[in-house]
């Protein structure tokens, strides 16, 4: 089985099958670039991902492994309105996968999925964050994201007025 060595920003190495790795657009490109530049067709590619740390990279690879038999979604599919993709692609396994994560980890996963071009993972993680916002009050959003209001004077009221103009019309 052809393997590829994927190394995280903090130096952890993961050995995975090229078949699995190629489900990431980024890794696929890197492997193909390595193949073109390497004289030895048997050589094992080594790819450094300098923007993703080990814990996050492990999660991405774990998700890819679970979804290795799914059809690959093009990165630009349904760009204008990708809502359907996420809902269609989310399984019970995905829900269990995301459930224990705090929002900080989810944010890191979004950035990693985007960097590695894993559209399915990008969609479900974005959808998870979206669910913490859509239909919630501002106070509920602050609670979910552990933030406090720092508006001064009537800034918040003025912002609310601007929003109203934007929505009303």
């Amino acid at each position, binding site marked *: 089985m052809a393997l590829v060595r994927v190394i995280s920003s*903090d*130096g952890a190495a993961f050995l995975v099958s090229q078949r*699995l790795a190629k489900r990431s657009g980024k890794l696929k490109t890197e492997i193909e670039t390595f193949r073109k530049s390497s004289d030895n067709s048997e050589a094992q590619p080594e790819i450094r991902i300098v923007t993703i*740390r080990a*814990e996050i990279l492990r999660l991405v690879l774990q998700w890819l492994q679970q979804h290795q038999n799914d059809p690959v979604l093009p990165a630009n599919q349904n760009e204008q309105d990708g809502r359907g993709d996420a809902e269609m692609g989310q399984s019970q396994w995905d829900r269990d996968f995301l459930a224990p994560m705090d929002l900080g980890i989810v944010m890191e996963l979004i950035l990693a999925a*985007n960097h590695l071009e894993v559209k399915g993972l990008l969609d479900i993680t974005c959808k998870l964050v979206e669910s913490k916002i859509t239909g919630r*009050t501002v106070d509920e959003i602050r609670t979910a994201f552990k933030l*406090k209001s720092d*508006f001064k004077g009537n800034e918040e009221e003025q912002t609310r007025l601007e929003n109203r103009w*934007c929505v009303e019309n």
Partner: protein
Amino acid sequence: MDATGSPPQKKLKSVDNDATKITTSEDAAMKNSTSFKSPITSPMLVPELWDLIFRNVVTDDYLRVINSCPEWNQLLNSRKITELFPMALPFIMKFLPKNDFLNLRLVSRDWKRKCEIIYENHPARLATATSDLRFPKLSSSGRMSPSFDDGVKFQGVESFQRFNSEVRNDCGNPFPGRCVWLLIKELEGHNSDDNDSEEEEEVRNPQIELDYWNAINQLLLQFGEHIWYLQLDYLFRDVSFVETRLRNMLLQVPNLKRLRLSFGGPEVDFDDSDEFNLRSVEFFKQNPPPKLENLEVFSCTNPNFPVYDEFQDFSNQLVKSYCPTDNLKRLNLPDMSYKPTPLPNLLELRTMINYLELPALKEASPKLESFGVSLQFEDGVVDANEYQGNRWRILNDGDDDIIIEDDDSVDNNIGVVFPHWNDCDDDDEHNCNDDSDTDNDKDYDDSDSGDKNIGVVFTGLHIFADTLKELDLLSDPWTLNWRKNNFKVVLPKLEKLCIPYSLPINHLLELKSLKYLKMDESPIFRDKTYCSNIFEQLPKLEKVVHTYGKERRVLTRPV
């Protein structure tokens, strides 16, 4: 980082040779640690010092730090949501309804600022947005579908006045997304859109008209500098004031990046279009407007009005007068005959243009990558050989119709890739697949075809071969008779081609970069061999869309 600036070295994880199992050895230990420990560096620093060092690290640097080692990640964990959410928001945006996105502006000052930056740069990515600010969507007839869902919409004097009184000018930008839609209707009794009839604000006398313009001017004077994206639908009553009022409005929006103008007025006002055009030219000479130096996208249309002919020169004047020479990237003039203007960095153009102006266009805008075009041909005899060096002659048949004839020397080879296509019958889609011999002049006969040829269209476009990636032929001035010649479309960088007719594959074989092909339905699509061969012959082709009336069929590359 150590004293040399390198991040602390980690031991490589042991890897599992079983490729389907991904195992790590350190994560468990990391998860179990609850108190922050300094990473091993030289010299060692106490945790409090790291805290101090990283206090002012933001955005990209923040991401680099948390990815460097688990200890730093743990130290900065509490700020993770705040720092990373704005970076992730552009991807989350497409799932967010507009109201909920706007709510994020109310969470905190920091989030308001960050959301606005993202919204300003991706205003059309909200889930509810149907508008495409980058380039207006066009219907099949080439008319712009009015839609500007992201913007603050002003319609009628009351909305201008109410905004002026409600919103303070000292809080910075009052327009989320910096996107504004001004719907200005001067027309008394005008009824252009039934959907708007209840809200329609009509100007019925000079005083109201004066108030109307005062309110608009006050709004733009107060807030115009905050507007980056402006849609201006201007339905005028008296054409005499169009240039002056437009100039006055645009003077107040110096930071515009994208401008969509839509004009309309009563036909009765245009007794002499030449007079109007001459007056416009003279006006812009005497009142040179300042260029909108940040303008990247300019669109000018005249939807639903039968007067656009009178605006041909006026629109070209607007491009010359307002569009910055170096910054303009996209130009949309679907209703107008474009006269090439030096715009050296123009990347996208959607317009009508005279076929003979194509070389001038290439010279004026040599970087053109995306071209949506309705080609026009002059009345009278035009010999394309004179400057194209090709073998087509364009003749006038005495009426408005133009005939393209191929020269006598043209070789009539055709259909070599699919010899059996000749047997297809319009009425019988199952007759397409036998390998019977061909008679090129009989098959796919179209009663309209006969004397005309589209080869000349593509031949004229070959001068854009070094840059053109997208080509959309917006109208079909031809009746189709492609089989009379063996021209090849030679646009090696072309990735997307939309044409309002169909072409046999042998004309497309040089399109080595083509990924997307849209053609009208024709009997060739009923040929299964054609459908499979097209993906073999065009190695990068991913999708073929063919339309038949309102039906749309999509073929994708077989796995």
